[in-house]
């Protein structure tokens, strides 16, 4: 199904390819912030943004490949990212108290 996306050079397919490339660049920028830090909350925010952008990539891949099933992992990823961020936030706040 990947080949279909590359073979049919319609405007929508070209847009999806460009969109996927740009979103991948966005994830790369967030990874730079994740590595640079400098504090733990910075890294948590970066992880949250990476998950959000992965959801966007999954949704646009669903359009490009014609696979609506790809929206289900996107839905799950949204919720997992929220739980992870809140857990990390509690961890940061706990560390401040002790």
């Amino acid at each position, binding site marked *: 199904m990947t080949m279909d996306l590359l073979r049919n050079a319609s405007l929508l397919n070209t847009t999806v390819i460009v*969109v996927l490339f740009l979103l991948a660049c966005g994830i790369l920028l967030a990874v*730079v912030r994740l590595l640079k830090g*400098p504090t*733990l909350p910075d890294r948590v925010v970066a992880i949250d943004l990476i998950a959000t952008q992965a959801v966007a990539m999954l*949704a*646009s891949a669903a359009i490009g490949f014609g696979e*609506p099933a790809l929206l289900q992992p996107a839905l799950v990823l949204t919720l997992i990212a*929220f739980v992870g961020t809140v857990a990390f936030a509690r961890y940061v706040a706990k560390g401040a108290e002790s």
Partner: protein
Amino acid sequence: MTEALTILLLTIGTIFTLLAAIGILRMPDVFMRMQVATKAATLGVACVAMAAAVHFGDLATTARAVLIVLFLFLTAPVAAHTIGRAAYVAGAQLWEGTIVDELRGRHQRSAQPPSGPAPE
């Protein structure tokens, strides 16, 4: 018509999400990075999910896309608030150009930033 709307929504969503990614790299302190990553990225993903709904146009896909947007709009502010408060309590440094700090004196902040050196 459907294809044009899909392309438009995809483009808008990608621009917003990319702006969020640039913002998280360029902004000077945790709180600005947080607000950029939350607001712009949420709007961007909402646009992309709506593009998927418009493209497929059936009930099952539309319902899932609407659910993604709904969960995102429900959870993003809560997550941003929680991590922002935790960062403030943990003593994250504010940008030196900050004018208003309404939480000053209301929280017992630890003197040290959460981990690592102060932001440059």
